[in-house]
């Protein structure tokens, strides 16, 4: 069993009548990417900021590296050991990339050489560029560099790709992917399904302050994603009827495609065998459910690009 880096038990955060975090429990293990996936206002940032010792908790307990976030002396130890990219990261506009990283680095006794961090984030040719002149994607990379400057074991990335264009988003993804290779434990919050599915070892789906499901992407998909789908392009009504009689859950859609929902791998092979016996020569496509299907099933809604439920 790997070491437990973060341990949260029955965490509650109450703002007046609003329960922003409602009895949340989870663990983070050493060297994994853990994603909090949920819409805006689900309690992602609140939970993360409690772990970063930025907010107090109302109930339950939260420990980082075994240190209690509510104890003054423990907080000092936690702050030394974590790296953070806050939501909507910003730095001093008039300072260069290096100066901004040096500023954060200057807060730690034990830290990496700034040049090393700059190299890690592939920012070498931007070292002297002022922060105000950087693109959104580069700014986020500076933020990640600042988060790594104290060589933390645990890195919090709060909505690291929100507001970025697809290209910049992919750049940040590759940075996050590298963090795991460097042996870091990453706590990622996001409202992008694809981001969670691609990057995370484990995902916690969070909505209205509660964790609705938790597990690896594959695990969540197989538990909640529903059935795989086999599509026969440009099929016929007869084919649809034959497959419906034999396997059920078949439909003939407007585009002339025959769509069959398949329960499991065994049934998929049987179906493929049937199609082979029929000497079928049409295009076929197998569609696996995604985290989006899981989310839709569990929460009953999708998340828009802006992070709202719809």
């Amino acid at each position, binding site marked *: 069993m790997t070491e437990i880096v973060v341990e949260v038990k029955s965490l509650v955060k109450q*703002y007046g009548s609003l329960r922003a975090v409602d009895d949340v429990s989870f663990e983070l293990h050493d060297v994994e990417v853990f994603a909090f996936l949920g819409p805006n206002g689900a309690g992602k940032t609140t939970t993360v*900021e409690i772990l*970063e*010792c*930025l*907010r*107090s908790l109302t109930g339950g307990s939260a420990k980082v590296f075994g240190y209690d976030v509510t104890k003054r002396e423990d907080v*000092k130890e936690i*702050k*030394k050991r*974590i790296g*953070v990219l*806050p*939501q*909507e*990261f*910003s*730095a*001093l*506009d*008039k*300072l260069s990339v290096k*100066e901004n990283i*040096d*500023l*954060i680095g*200057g*807060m*730690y006794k034990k830290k990496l050489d700034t040049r090393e961090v700059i190299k890690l984030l592939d920012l070498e040719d931007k070292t002297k560029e*002022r922060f105000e002149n950087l693109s959104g994607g580069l700014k986020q990379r500076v933020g990640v560099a*600042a988060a790594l400057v*104290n060589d933390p074991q645990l890195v919090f990335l709060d909505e690291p790709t929100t507001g970025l264009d697809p290209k910049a988003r992919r750049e940040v993804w590759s940075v996050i992917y590298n963090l795991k290779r460097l042996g870091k434990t990453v706590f990622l919050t996001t409202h992008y399904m694809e981001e969670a599915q691609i990057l995370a070892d484990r995902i916690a789906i969070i909505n209205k302050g509660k964790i609705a499901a938790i597990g690896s992407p594959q695990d969540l998909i197989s538990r909640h994603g529903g059935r795989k789908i086999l599509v026969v392009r440009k099929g016929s009504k007869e084919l649809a009827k034959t497959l419906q009689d034999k396997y059920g859950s078949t439909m003939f859609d407007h585009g002339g495609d025959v769509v069959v929902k398949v329960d499991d791998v065994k049934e998929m092979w049987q179906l493929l065998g049937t199609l082979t016996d029929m000497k079928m020569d049409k295009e076929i496509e197998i569609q696996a459910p995604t985290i989006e299907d899981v989310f839709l099933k569990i929460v009953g809604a999708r998340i828009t690009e802006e992070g709202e439920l719809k």
Partner: protein
Amino acid sequence: MIRPLVIFLAVTKSWIRSRSGLFFSIMFPVLLLLVFGAIFGGGVGGGASTLFVQNLDRNPNGTATQLSSAFVDALNSTKTFAIKDVPADVDSKVWTKNNLGPLGGNIRIVMISEGFQDDVLNGTLKVRVGISYSLLNTTYQYFAPYLNESEKMVYEQGLAQMRQYNETLSDRRTSLTLAFDASDQSAAVIKNIVINVANAFNYHLIGATNVIEFKEESVTSNRYGAVDYYLPGIIAAFIMTNGIIALTANTTEFKRRGIIKRLSITPLTKFDWIIGNVLSQTLLSLMLTAIMILVGWIVFRVQAIPDALTIAVIFLGSVMFSGLGMVLGGLVKDVEAASALGNAIAFPMMFLSGTYFPMDFMPSYLQSIAKVLPLTYFSDGLRYALIYKYTEGVLSNMAVVSALAVAFIILGSVVTRWKEK
């Protein structure tokens, strides 16, 4: 002490590279010094003020009488006025309004009434005859016991004739009229100059000399100009606004952009953060002082030479106001509120603390308010240190400033939020 230094370096660099910051913190005060120096540097109005004179005392041939033109010459000799004649046959107020010139200006008219010369001569004669009579009379009374009756009669007849003659001289005084606009700020000064000229004229005519001579002397050993008075005031006022307005706005902007939040996740403490910012502001204040004194010296030849005590005063004052800035920055959330609050505190303080106007001119309730304003102590302390070299005055004022500096920094670390709700 490493972390405050890192903060100090970062915010100072950030400030030096910001053009608007540089303008408002350094260039603006320098401009203001130049403007103030130009306005107040050279006596009343710097150059000559226009004074309209309408002389109604004319000879039958239309020329001005001898005495009235002598009075106008006396006004002219003060070198304070550029005298402009108003024709005798017009309404002087209407005429001056139409003849102010394209740029306008203040209307100040001295009107010399008709009969000025006659009245002055008559009055002068009456005074002189009166004096002679009283002198002769006193002498007569003293020597009367030694005179025979016929001698007494001759003297008494003579004295009676003299008294009779004096009674025939009229009591009428001649009058001068000075007309000016109620809103004219310099009218009081001009009135005094005109009255002084008239008095000197009076004395001269009756043959009197001044018994009391008035001398002006400065309490300081060197000769200081108006700019020397304003310089410490402007420096103090801008150290205050840099602390209260600029630092408050900066801190709020850092808060809004999440920079304070990012820093608070690191081992940096609130106290380190405040000290770093205060140090940066203090460096800025010292730079401001150096530049202001340099410009003051180059342009106005100010005499103020900063010594170690002055630097200590600047340091403490700057710590106090940047401490206050950190308190305000900790209290307000958005930049607009910060700027409004900073201005609301800074501007009344600037005008109530004797920075630009000596407090003696203010009503007593305003003077009481001034006594509780931190800037009063700072600008007084700075003036004592920089100009009067009055160490005791510096120390007593700086005791208050130091106490407030400590209080503001402590209060700043209480109100600065290092943790979200």
